């Protein structure tokens, strides 16, 4: 593997600086955002690199559990902040977080225990990147799906109430919205699988190949990861959507949009 020096990265960063200058000259107005994001990515990745380095040198499951919980909590916050209408109170944060926990953690556990089988099974070199990829993608699916669910409930509130007035159950009244939200949450993963290798070379596989792994090994890992991510995203989205859809109604099957708050933007 060819190691990169700080000078290599500095040279590359000049490209981003050049882009920022161009953006400023033509008045595109994204130069501040661009530089800030570039700075963030550098600091965040260096920080995580340092944490992983420390984590890999020891195998205390407690530290790994702590790391995993931190990743989950940050992903939960991200899901909430991406909602146009999020649930009030603990539900706004809890729903996405719980759905991610249920799907990502159980899929990661299955993969580590029965498929990859490192020794010990929680070996951080495998557990943390795997969980990270699962959480990152599940987070996308859940936030897209929940956002679709709540915003379409808001838009179609009159139709939903009209259905309730005709004696539809809450479940029946939400059927099309629920299906639509699940579909929206799962489409990105389905598209990614369909495009993999033809239109795009998946990042993980590319990384392994750059690091010197034999292409077929990298491909096998990539397929494994794709399947795990798809299952995690799909089940996670379904859990979040059914929790969200039932939270939109009370025990008397009344539509309760007052349980949502509009994000002030």
């Amino acid at each position, binding site marked *: 593997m060819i190691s990169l020096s700080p000078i290599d990265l500095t040279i590359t960063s000049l490209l981003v600086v050049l882009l920022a200058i161009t953006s400023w000259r033509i008045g595109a107005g994204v130069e501040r955002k661009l530089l800030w994001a570039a700075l963030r990515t550098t600091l965040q990745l260096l920080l995580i690199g340092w944490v992983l380095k420390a984590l890999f040198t020891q195998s205390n499951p407690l530290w790994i559990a702590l790391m995993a919980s931190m990743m989950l909590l940050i992903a939960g916050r991200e899901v909430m902040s991406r909602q146009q209408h999020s649930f009030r109170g603990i539900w706004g944060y809890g729903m996405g977080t719980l759905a991610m926990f249920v799907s990502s953690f159980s899929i990661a556990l299955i993969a580590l225990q029965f498929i990859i089988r490192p020794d010990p099974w929680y070996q951080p070199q495998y557990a943390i990147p795997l969980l990270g990829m699962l959480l990152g993608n599940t987070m996308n699916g859940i936030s897209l799906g929940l956002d679709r669910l709540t915003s379409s409930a808001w838009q*179609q509130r*009159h*139709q939903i*109430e*009209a*259905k309730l007035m*005709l*004696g539809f159950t809450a479940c029946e009244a939400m059927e099309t919205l629920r299906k639509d939200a699940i579909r929206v949450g799962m489409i990105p993963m389905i598209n990614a699988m369909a495009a993999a290798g033809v239109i795009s070379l998946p990042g993980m596989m590319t990384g392994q190949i750059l690091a010197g792994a034999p292409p077929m090994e990298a491909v096998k890992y990539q397929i494994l990861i794709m399947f795990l991510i798809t299952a995690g995203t799909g089940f996670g989205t379904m859990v979040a959507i059914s929790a969200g859809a039932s939270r939109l109604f009370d025990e*008397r*099957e009344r539509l309760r949009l007052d349980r949502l708050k509009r994000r002030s933007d």
Partner: protein
Amino acid sequence: MEKIAKLTLKELSTLHLRPTSFSVERAEIVTLNGPSGAGKSLLLRSICDLIEHQGDVMLNNISVRTIAAHQWRKDVGMLAAESYWWHERMGDHFDSISNAELSQLGLSPKLLKQHTSECSTGERQRLALLRLLQNQPQVLLLDEPTSGLDQGSARQVEALILDYIKDNQAAAIWVSHDPEQCRRVATRHFQIENGLIQEAAL
């Protein structure tokens, strides 16, 4: 044996509606009138349990609390002032509907093939009534069922509702701004003002 009323309200109240108690008997139509914002729709919505409320509502002496909400709304059906549709074509909202039912309200069977947005407000309003009656509700909560209809269509709607009430021994609460209409259909009349409901002469 004591006679059991079809629909009974016991101290029913919401945030903007003062406690109200009254009964509607079988085959009875209670009309309700009052300025906009007085709480007419609020009353109907709380009777069909679409909004939170205090007090109790009973159908044939059985409390709303003991019946699943969706079943209650099948029996106590509400016709909102504005109708909403969710399928592409009008006809998809009906299990089966005869041309006779449509022509009773002066509607053409062709409407069923149309996109919901292609129907006029008046057509949709009348179709919403037919959609509601398909559930065979025992109580009708009607929020201005003829507003915006011409005199002829309004009379057809009135006739259909009156027939339904009589044939099914149903009960109705009918919000109407038309005193003439109230006189034609009402057995009793209520007036609502600032959330307070009182029986009034027509």
